[in-house]
Every structure is written in structure tokens, then in C-alpha cells.
């Protein structure tokens, strides 16, 4: 067992040497809200195959959710459905840095995290349908996707509510001497919750192996960042707890991956929690119920011009790494996968109402009052 030390990182550690430039802490503060921080240049990556994987994973998330919109309109799926469209580079980039034994704690906008983490589209779609074959057995729905076998600790629908358990997962790993990382996603809205402060302090104090990933999409539901935070430089605030904190262009999947890899490396070497502020944007409304009256069309269009999928696709095309027929093949593969998921969910069994009280306690007899 390692012993908690009272000392902690007081300064940002310098990012690892690399040909690419990751904006340092503070860059986000200098850029006005709503303007993404520039990402790395378009120098060719030595592994175009990996870039193709990134592209395909982002596209799978995008197409999956587009299909969810149709299914929602057809009343096949219900409840709140919070779409990740526009933010795919964050989930895909960050999860590249994680090993299978690492843990992920997510939010209610977690379809992207779940798919990027390898939960099959079949299991996620069946959950959207509320069927027994869903990744939460139909008990969770869109906001509560879980997969214990992949250490995916879900879908927390209380803003910042996943942060304390994430610290606990990291604490347990540390106490048991396991060199694992817990990655916790949350939004900019979480900065206004006390749980962010409590967890950031605890994680830094105990030097927990925790990766704090703030998806700053500039809105806490309908309230713009500058309308809910007195200080909008989120990385600077995270750094004030004594942890390494960087602001990254969240629309550039390669920049995200690079920053996440550096952060995870740092965490694994015992330098305590790391914080990433990923500047991103959701192209769709907050949820299916949201009329989206609080954002300017112009602003949405501006961000759409930096669509993370198009950004990577164009970069690959420029580099000659992606032909039209490659793209078509990827699209076909994804369409088949999603249609299979829909078909399987349609056919999947519904849990009998007689089982209502299952999973309230671990007792096989079901719930006791």
C-alpha cells in the first residue's frame, strides 16, 4: 500500500515534449468564451490507421445518436435524451489514453463515452429501448448506462454527482496498489457545484490517480458559462487546488488524445490528479425537450464549422490518408452496426412487471420493506 503524503503538486508540470502544441493552462482564460483554443497543426501522424479508428469511432457515435433522434420522434425511446453531437472528439480522444482496467465515470450525456469505451451499440440501444438486453438491463435508460465488466460506472444524472465516487474508485486503486486511473467526465456546469470543489481538494490532497475531464461546452443547460461562473478560466481554477491542469481544443480529437495521454502518463507515475478543460460545443439542444432559445444561430454555425469529424476527415484527406471509398466503407459498416442494434432492441424482451422489485437490494428475494 502506498502512503498518502502531505505534499502535493503546487505547479503545473511541463507537458511532455512533442511536435504538437497543447495549449497550457490559462490559454482558455485568454481566449474569449465561445472561441476555441487553436489545436495542434496538421503535421501527418505516423499512424494513419489509428486516425482512421478515431474517425470511425467518432462517426459511430454521431450516427448512433442521429438514429436515436429518429427513434425518439417515432416514440420508440423516451425519457431525457442528451445528445453528444459535436462533442465526440472529447470521448474518443480521452478514452484512447485509458487502459481496459481503468475506470470511467460519466454524466447523463454519456452515449459517446459508453460507445467510445467499447460498450457494444447493441447494448446501448437496447438500454435506450428499456429492454432486458440493455447495458443496465433497462433499469437505467439514456442517462444511466453502466457496464461493470468494462469498469464503466455510468451515467450520473446529478451534475457533479459522479465526482466523489470517482475519487473513491481512485482511492481504492491506490490503497490496493493497483496502477489504474479513474477518468471522470463532467461539464462546465459542475464547476458551480460544491462537489467539484470538495472532490478537487480531496483528490489533490490525497494525490489520487484521477483524471478530471471537464467538457466545457459553454452552457450549463441553458446558462452560458459567463452567466454561471465568476471566473471562466476553468483550468486556472483547477490548478489552484494544486493539480496539473491544461486547456485543450476539444474539437480536435488528436489534440485531445495527446493531452489525455500526457495526463494519464503523469497520473500513472504518481503525480496525482490531472485536469483537462476541453473546449467543445454541443450542436444540438440540451435535451430533446429543449427549444434552444438561449443560443445565437450564428454561434452554433461558427462551432459547426469546426465539426470534430469533418476536421479530422479533412486533415486525413489532405494527407492522402482517406479516400472517398474508405469513407463510404466506414459509413456502411456503421450503418449496418446501428441497424443491427435497432433491430435487436426491437426484438429484445421486456422485463416482466412481476420483476419490478428486483435490484433494489442484493437479496435474491428482491426488495424488502
Amino acid at each position, binding site marked *: 500500500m502506498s502512503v498518502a503524503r502531505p505534499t502535493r503538486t503546487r505547479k503545473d508540470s511541463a507537458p511532455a515534449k512533442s511536435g504538437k502544441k497543447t495549449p497550457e493552462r490559462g490559454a482558455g482564460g485568454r481566449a474569449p468564451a465561445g472561441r476555441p483554443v487553436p489545436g495542434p497543426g496538421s503535421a501527418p501522424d505516423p499512424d494513419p490507421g489509428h486516425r482512421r479508428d478515431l474517425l470511425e469511432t467518432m462517426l459511430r457515435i454521431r450516427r448512433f445518436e442521429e438514429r436515436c433522434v429518429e427513434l425518439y420522434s417515432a416514440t420508440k425511446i423516451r425519457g431525457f435524451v442528451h445528445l453528444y453531437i459535436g462533442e465526440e472528439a472529447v470521448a474518443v480522444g480521452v478514452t484512447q489514453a485509458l487502459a481496459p482496467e481503468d475506470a470511467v465515470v460519466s454524466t447523463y450525456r454519456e452515449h459517446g463515452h459508453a460507445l467510445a469505451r467499447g460498450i457494444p451499440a447493441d447494448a446501448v440501444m437496447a438500454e435506450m429501448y428499456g429492454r432486458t438486453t440493455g447495458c443496465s*438491463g433497462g433499469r437505467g435508460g439514456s442517462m444511466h448506462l*453502466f457496464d461493470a465488466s468494462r469498469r464503466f460506472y455510468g451515467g450520473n444524472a446529478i451534475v457533479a454527482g459522479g465526482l466523489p465516487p470517482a475519487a*473513491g474508485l481512485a482511492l*481504492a486503486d491506490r490503497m*490496493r496498489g493497483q496502477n489504474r486511473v479513474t477518468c471522470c467526465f463532467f461539464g462546465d456546469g459542475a464547476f458551480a457545484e460544491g*462537489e467539484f470543489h470538495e472532490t478537487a481538494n480531496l483528490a489533490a490532497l490525497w494525490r489520487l490517480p484521477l483524471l478530471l475531464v471537464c467538457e466545457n461546452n459553454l452552457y450549463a443547460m441553458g446558462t452560458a458559462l459567463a452567466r454561471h461562473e465568476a471566473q471562466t478560466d476553468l483550468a486556472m481554477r483547477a490548478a489552484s487546488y494544486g493539480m496539473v491542469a491544461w486547456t485543450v481544443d476539444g474539437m480536435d480529437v488528436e489534440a485531445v488524445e495527446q493531452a489525455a495521454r500526457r495526463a494519464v502518463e503523469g497520473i500513472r507515475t504518481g503525480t496525482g490528479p490531472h485536469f483537462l478543460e476541453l473546449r467543445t460545443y454541443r450542436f444540438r439542444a440540451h435535451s430533446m425537450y429543449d427549444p434552444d432559445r438561449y443560443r445565437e444561430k450564428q454561434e452554433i454555425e461558427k462551432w459547426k464549422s469546426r465539426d470534430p469529424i469533418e476536421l479530422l476527415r479533412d486533415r486525413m484527406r489532405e494527407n492522402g490518408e482517406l479516400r472517398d471509398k474508405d469513407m463510404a466503407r466506414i459509413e456502411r459498416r456503421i450503418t449496418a452496426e446501428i441497424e443491427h442494434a435497432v433491430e435487436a432492441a426491437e426484438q429484445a424482451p421486456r422485463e416482466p412487471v412481476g420483476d419490478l422489485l428486483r435490484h433494489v437490494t*442484493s437479496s435474491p428475494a428482491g426488495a424488502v420493506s
Partner: protein
Amino acid sequence: MGADGEDLAARTTYREAMREALREALRSDDRVFLMGEDVGRYGGCFGVSLGLLEEFGPERVRDTPLSESAFVGAGIGAALAGMRPVVEIMTVNFSLLALDQILNNAATLLHMSGGQLPVPLVIRMTTGAGRQLGAQHSHSLEGWYAHIPGIRVLAPATLEDARHMLAPALADPDPVLVFEHAGLYNVSGELLPPAAPVDLDHAAIRRPGTDISLITYGGSLPKTLAAADELAAAGISAEVIDLRTLRPLDDAAVNASVARTHRAVVVDEAWRTGSLAAEVSARIAEDSFYELDAPVERVCSAEVPMPYARQLEEAALPQTADIVAAAHRAVD
């Protein structure tokens, strides 16, 4: 309950019994650790964990910042990752700062995940009034927690339960909340070895009787036993039921007692409205209506934030005389 005048050598206190239970848990299972405000160097706000830091070290007896939500939530996460945390919250009033974690995560994760994620976590906290600590350190909110499906709620009221409830609580795969009435810590008596492993599903008859059932739990048990003594002197044989587990409630024990006595008084230090006493009374009305020879009586705290002044605090709390009076109303 510890009786007076027993062999001093074998005597212990509720506080020491609880400490011994923690020591045993820490010794017997390296997944167990204790975490909370001032549990280490300070020795616990009520002295329960005194000496455990020295014995088990700062990794396993872990002082936390004053961040109830973070350290309760961290207990949840550590439990998910295979540890067996015991989280101490100083008082039930402070637990409200962690209510989101307790309700929305600890009690809910197993269900939301379709059975994949049990949360084997024990949360201990003090509850109750009687020490003139005013309106933010004195309430009895365990009934609120007993409202929540997915958690088990314990109220050890005796030395035996203080000593022996923790092990089965830690063996429970689901979250267990343990409410320790602050007025009990100094109770002393002879601690007997358990005749059988402590069973968390059943209420206990602390005193058998035939004329009336006095149903209570936690810090109200000594007052209720004293009331039974007074009633005996008046020729009324009162049976005292200690609920012990507030969720799930042992309906069978309550109904069996009422079937014997045909009268019931429920004693609960919480406020009367929406209380556990209300729940127990409703269940008696539902299940034992035709057994009753008199309306169910309730003795609860007055509906007032707990006042500081001694005479007002005493007037706000259920007292032995109130229990005796309620029993007389039911019997006469």
C-alpha cells in the same frame, strides 16, 4: 441494556463496544478502512475511534477534509472498487450535506445498473438530542433514511448491538447506515458474548410483557425500559420491542407482540409528522387492526427545532413520564 451493579471487571461502554467492533473489522479484513472528519488524530468527535490511528495507520484510519459529500461519495467509489469502507459522519445533521451521494448514488446504483453495482458501504453517524446542542446538532433524521429503498438502516441501542452489528453490516453487499444515539455512548454495563451471530433482520424483545407493547429503537430504549419498570409497579406488564433495524422493518415481530398485548405505544425521538412512528403505527393499523383493544399511541418529539434551554429541550423530547402516560391512556 447495561444494568447497574454488575461486575466492574467485565464492564464496558457503548463507545468502547463500538470501538472494539471497528478494531475487529480492521483486523480481520484488510479491505476495511475508516474514513471521516477527525476519526484519526482527534480520536473521533465522540472518542469512538480513539487509538485506532496508532494501531492501523493513516491509510486505514483516514482523516478527511470537512467535505461530507466528497468523502461519503469516495466511500461509495471505494466500495465499488472492492474495498469495505466505514465512513463516519459526525452527526446526522451534517449527513444532509451528503444526502445526494447517499440517496442518488449509494441507494440507487445497484438498481440503475440493473444489478451490476452493489455498494458494500457502511456509514455511521450520531443522532439525537439531550445535550443542549441546539437546533443543528440534535435532530433524529434516521426516519428519513428509512424512507429510502436500497439501504439498510440500523439503530444499535444496546452494548451487544454496538459491539456486534458492525460485522454483519460490513458483510451486507448493500449500503448500511448505522445511527448511534449520542446519549448512549457513556452507557455502561456487562457485555455478554453473543449467543448467536447478530441478525440484522429482526427486532428484539428487550422485556417481555402481556398488557401493552412499547415499540421503540435507539436512544429511546433506556427511557422506554424505565417506563416499563414504572408500569410494572402500577401492575401493567409492558413488552418492550427494540426495532434495531429501521429498514427493513420487522413487521412480524411488531404484529406478534400486538397480537399478545392488543395495545401499542410507539416511541420515537423524531418529530411526529411523517415519522418512523407514523410508519409503524400505520402498519399496525393495516396488519393488526382487529387485534387492537385501543388506538395506537405515539410518543415523539415536539414539532419544534430543538431548543437550547435545558427545560425546553427536555420538554421537546419524549420522556419516561410521557411513555408511561401514553401507556395508561391505552390501557385504562
